[in-house]
């Protein structure tokens, strides 16, 4: 238990902010869990990198933004380059397979996990913008001891347009089922 | 403009002697005085209200003869 920090990073339009909000909404459903969710607006209001953060804790959340993430998601090279060096020692990086992670800090070599998120979204779901739901699925598995999976599903259902619920849940499940367990510490200290 | 109505200097203390009423009186019975407007000949007043309506200082009032 304790403070847990998630940073979701990608390009504008990849839905990272929505994913952050959904995680936070799910957290709200957990009794006595505090949530702070924020996002960065880039220098310009349009385009560029996009970043969402979720912090949760049973205690009061003092500093509301991520200090050092427990869990970092990077969907683009740019976001990996920018944020990939900042992680708790026992933290987890989920990076899209398209990213060149060769420059990862040596101490994080074992914390990083590459998944073909964007590809799966495009091919399995047939829709690149469901990448964020796959990400949510991955995260849901990692944090399930803190935020029940159903809450996240419920939050998805509430937040996405009614017509797209099925597709989104499908993507979520896909993410959830992705095997992460080959390195068990991947769950970090959730 | 009933003949039974005539002008009254209702608030003499407010008059600033600007002469506007004098200039609009069709019967020429008003004049600017030493400090404030004066009525030359009340009898000639036809109660036309011209002066009352234009006076910027609410000095004048057309009233029934018996009020005067």
């Amino acid at each position, binding site marked *: 238990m304790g403070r847990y920090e998630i940073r979701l990073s990608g390009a504008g339009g990849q839905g990272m902010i929505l994913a952050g909000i959904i995680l936070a909404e799910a957290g709200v459903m957990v009794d006595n869990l505090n949530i702070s969710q924020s996002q960065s607006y880039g220098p310009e209001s349009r385009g560029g990198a996009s970043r969402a953060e979720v912090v949760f804790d049973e205690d009061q959340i003092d500093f509301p933004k991520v200090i050092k993430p427990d869990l970092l998601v990077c969907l683009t090279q740019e976001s990996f380059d920018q944020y990939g060096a900042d992680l708790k020692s026992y933290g987890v990086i989920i990076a899209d397979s398209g990213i060149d992670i060769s420059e990862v800090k040596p101490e994080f070599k074992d914390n990083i996990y590459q998944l073909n998120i964007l590809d799966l979204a495009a091919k399995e779901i047939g829709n690149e913008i469901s990448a964020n739901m796959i990400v949510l699925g991955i995260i849901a598995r990692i944090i399930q001891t803190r935020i029940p999976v159903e809450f996240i599903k419920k939050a998805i259902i509430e937040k996405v347009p009614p017509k797209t619920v099925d597709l989104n849940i499908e993507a979520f499940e896909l993410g959830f089922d992705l095997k992460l367990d080959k390195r068990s510490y991947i769950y970090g200290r959730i | 403009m009933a003949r039974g109505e005539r002008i009254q200097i209702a608030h003499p203390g407010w008059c600033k002697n600007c002469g506007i009423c004098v200039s609009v009186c069709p019967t020429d019975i008003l004049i600017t005085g030493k400090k404030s407007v004066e009525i030359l000949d009340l009898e000639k007043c036809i109660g036309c209200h011209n002066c009352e309506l234009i006076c*910027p200082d609410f000095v004048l009032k057309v009233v029934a003869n018996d009020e005067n």
Partner: protein
Amino acid sequence: MDFEKYLRMDKLPHIWCPGCGHGTILNSFIRAFAESDFDQDKTVVISGIGCSGRATGYLNFDTLHTTHGRAIAFATGVKMANPELNVIVMTGDGDGSAIGGNHLIHAARRNIDLTVILFNNQIYGMTGGQFSPMTPTGDLASTAPYGNIDQNFNLAELVAGAGGTFIARGATFDPRQLKKLYLAALKHKGFSFVESLSQCPVSYGRQNKAGDAVEMLKKQEEDTINFKKWQQLSTEEKKLKYPLGILKELDNPESEYTVRYQKIIEQVNNEGAL
């Protein structure tokens, strides 16, 4: 008329100079109000800063003497907060058309039910005779010692261009017409605007050697013409005279702003009920 009711007798005589037309405007206004059906207790008069702004101090209503140029914006808040109130704005040509020009055109655009009486003495009276957006080109002013190069607004056209639904112009030389215009403006449901030509024998008159109030009123009469007659003039002749009377009147109470807002309230609450 028992005008005392509408005046704060203990505040009179007012501070305006001898012969100042602003007093005549006030005089005409209270007579118009007396003839209207409005409740004195439900009427708010709001002014800005200037000699004209002092008008509210003498009127026995709820009165609000605001900051320079902002009377209409305050009035918009009052009216929207309580649409049952009858809200009147008294503003100067500087107050209403220089610093306050934006609020004037936006209130006209919204067609909110305010009655705006603009005291146009063609000068900044209170601050000592600087030119205003209504000072005619060529006139002298303390900030135009060599003659004013600014071109003045035609306020009726400006407010019409902004969407105002009732626009009139009167002048202090003809208080009977002024009263009628105020009464019509009060009755109009929507934004109404009455430009009221006023004489300032002190801040305007002295610099321009315009004579005393009486002479200025004579000039006013010469420079103006009844709107109906004006319409029959040639384009060239038209430029030489200010038309007086109701210049525009569009009767569409449904388009009034508080009415429109009320509809939104009803719509939202009906939807809620569904």
